[in-house]
């Protein structure tokens, strides 16, 4: 598998793992909005995967 794909998937996994960790260690507003920021990074990575490496033509 390409390096870029692996890196992008690793970032996506990290985004998910950080969610409960930030809630546990920091909490409050910071956790609330950082979850959203992590979700946005995850979303960008997911669409990057599709458009850059797995684009499909009809």
């Amino acid at each position: 598998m390409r390096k870029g794909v692996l890196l992008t998937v690793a970032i996506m996994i990290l985004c998910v793992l950080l969610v409960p960790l930030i809630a546990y260690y920091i909490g409050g507003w910071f956790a609330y909005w950082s979850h959203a920021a992590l979700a946005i990074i995850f979303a960008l990575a997911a669409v990057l995967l599709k458009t850059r490496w797995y684009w499909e033509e009809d």
Partner: protein
Amino acid sequence: MEPPLQTTLALVIGVVTAIASLLAISISLGFLMRRKAKNFEEWLVGHRDIGPVVTGFALISSYLSGWAMYGNAGLGYTFGWAGSWLIGTVCIMGIALCLVMGYRMRRYVQLGARTVPEMLKVRFESKMLQALAGLAMIILLIVYSVGQYKAMATVWTITTATPFHWSLIITAVLVLVYVAVGGYAGTQWVSCFQGILLTAVGWTLGIASLLWAGGPAKIEEMLKTQTFTPPGGTSTSIPLDGYIIPPLTTKDMAYPWADWIGVTASIFMFLLMATGFPHNIARFLGTRKISKKEYWAMLLITIVGGLTPLWIGVVGFAGRAVFGDKLLTEKYKPMYGDAVGALVSISVGGIPLAALFTASVFAASVSTLAGMALIMATNITRDLLHNLKPDLPSKALLWLTRLMLIPFIAIPLWWTMTATPPVLSVFMAGSAVAQAGIFFFVVGVSMYWRRATKWGAASAIIYGLSLTILHPNAYGQYVGLHHWGFWALLLIFGSAATYFLISLLTKPVPKEKLEKLFPRTSAV
């Protein structure tokens, strides 16, 4: 501060005008598209020419149901920070997965699929699977619709002082009119319009309520002084300053925030549910071919729209900081904390914002209910009846589908009237876990995994439905399954394991049949 319970004539006029205007625009759009639909096929998927902007906002609109647009405020109010696990702070992750995976639905439309179960018939060449998926969707969507009714009726009751049961009946009639006139193409365009409205109002109310309550620091400080009070119950000594509410009794374990296992399960639920929701993935049935650039535009729309549920959660935190736990007393039965959204909107922005917010909640609930009622009705006509009698005329199917909308609007209405859930989002999450666990794999993964078989998919549906019945608040408590997290993980990963294992153990779909579904040009 006391919640503003006094309804004024000006507020009622404002609310009715806002809802009437919303319905007029929606019905006009629906009517326009209906005139264009010449047959049943077109009524279901439109002209398959829907672009990225309409698809993006329609996806947001179908995702922003009564749960996200209204119930989230109740979650923030009742459970504080812990409520965020169902507010869906990570929901954009799941919406992005739906965006990435759902686009392949177009391939199945080209091969004749017009509904999500029909996509399964095409994928596995199995009418049995189509019927089974249709049946599962009906069961799960009926449960999901109950929460939509509570959202609509609560906001109507608070703003117009109509008795709760009458509010339910009024909204059911409106849904029936709305969906009967619209149809798929109608709801796709109407949903786009509503997606824009929901996003604008959600952001405005969220930011305004943050300022109204004294700013983020003040809200955080006030939440620390609050303790958890169950709806209609007595106050406990558990502070609302953390992301976990430790259970005091076995019953308290039936929530995601009881411990970190529940939290983990809720994250997986949000990751998979946007793709698992049939009403979400169905948004791609009418989409045209989209370029890479347009894909990024569609993502931007879903990010902006996907932050709306978080702003509604903020409304709940602000409400708790200002009102305290007053809404959790018997006085607010059966609405309880779910009443906070409407009350804060009145306090924050007076009649204009309250009217707009009420119209938005109607839009969120109506469009989701409309999509669901339509899916359930077509599950009966297209996936069951048409399956049994393929020679049924197209016109008869169209009218039968419209007729079937009546029971699918009436059944959840009756349920909400007779057993109103105390916190609507908690109730809806039960159905969401099942839809995520079953349909993410059966529909989403099957579009990409060549080795999937109809037996794997059918087993996952049966397993998922069986586990749904064992929800801790349903029959799970009788077999010792009290823990929401364990239940949700068992459902999601059990369905996945069943799907993959049974698929690998059964005869694969012949290669020549897979050729048309997985052409060699495909990179995945």
